[in-house]
């Protein structure tokens, strides 16, 4: 499912568009893992292919790796 959230940059309203299913978001044939646009443009996206694991958020992957290490007793 497409998820859109508003955020502010120097007083200007922007919309961040992502997929909650780990897919690219697509507009005009172009794929984004995260798309940020000025809110006034009203750009709409559809879900595309799954984002390969190697292209996923590094912070999330690092957190997963750390959690795995803790579970395996490698670190605390």
């Amino acid at each position, binding site marked *: 499912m497409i998820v859109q959230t508003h955020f502010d*940059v*120097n007083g*200007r309203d*922007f919309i961040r568009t992502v997929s909650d299913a780990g897919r690219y978001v697509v*507009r005009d*044939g*172009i*794929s*984004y*893992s*995260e*798309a*940020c*646009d*000025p809110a006034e*443009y009203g*750009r709409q996206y559809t879900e595309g292919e799954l*984002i390969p694991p*190697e*292209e*996923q*958020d*590094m*912070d999330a992957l690092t957190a997963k790796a750390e959690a795995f290490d803790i579970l395996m007793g490698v670190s605390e």
Partner: protein
Amino acid sequence: MAVDKLVDSTQLDADLTSVANAIRTKGGTSGQLAFPAGFVQAIGDISTGDNVATWDEIATRSFREKNVELSDAVTELPRNLFEHSNIQKITAPGVTTVGSGVFLYNNGITVIDSKSFPELTILSTSCFQSCTTITAAIFQKVETIDQYSFYQATSFTALDIGSHSSGVVPEADNRIKGSNVTFAGGCKLDTLIIRQTHRVMDLQDIRNFNGSAFNDNNKVATLYVPASLVSEYEAATNWSTLLSRTNNYIVAIEGSQYDGYYVDGTPIT
């Protein structure tokens, strides 16, 4: 497979000095030597057969060589070829593609100038990842910047990808790939020059600039693009957000290709 030669300029200089000293000793002089006309040409005509090397030999020698020169015939560099190497300079006039991690963990290159890879179209995954000495890179025909390409390149500040080439790269790949890794991990990018005039280069994810000057309100970062595309970049997905941040600027390129770009006051050509 014989592919090309390596030149160790440091060793070459030492060898030539030794030869010159021997000549001075024979002649009973310590003065400046004057080589006869044609001497340099004669040296240049000497066969380089002894320097022909395989990829394995090149990879092995790259741990002690400082300068790699490849002929026009070499069009591709295998993945991880110079990983953990110490080479400082490379000239690869015919190379159009490089494998992933080709300079991963290199600890010697400071600048890739416009003559290093004039035909390269894709900056492959992790190509300069964790290369801690590189400060700037100039290319002429790059159309794709793949993920991790400058991740943890902690001295890297400036990238010029040149202008659009012959359309070798599919239009859909004319972009900066990756989710939050391409210029992140301590990369200090503050100057990005995109010279292609046919379209806006897509930015797959704004977080690719995490940690760089483009994502730091206290540091100035500048995107240079052709004047005809300035307004399109200002409205483009992700670029528009990046350019709205404090101290981020977009500037129209002026002059001919590679004019006006300097590192520490020295023009790079």
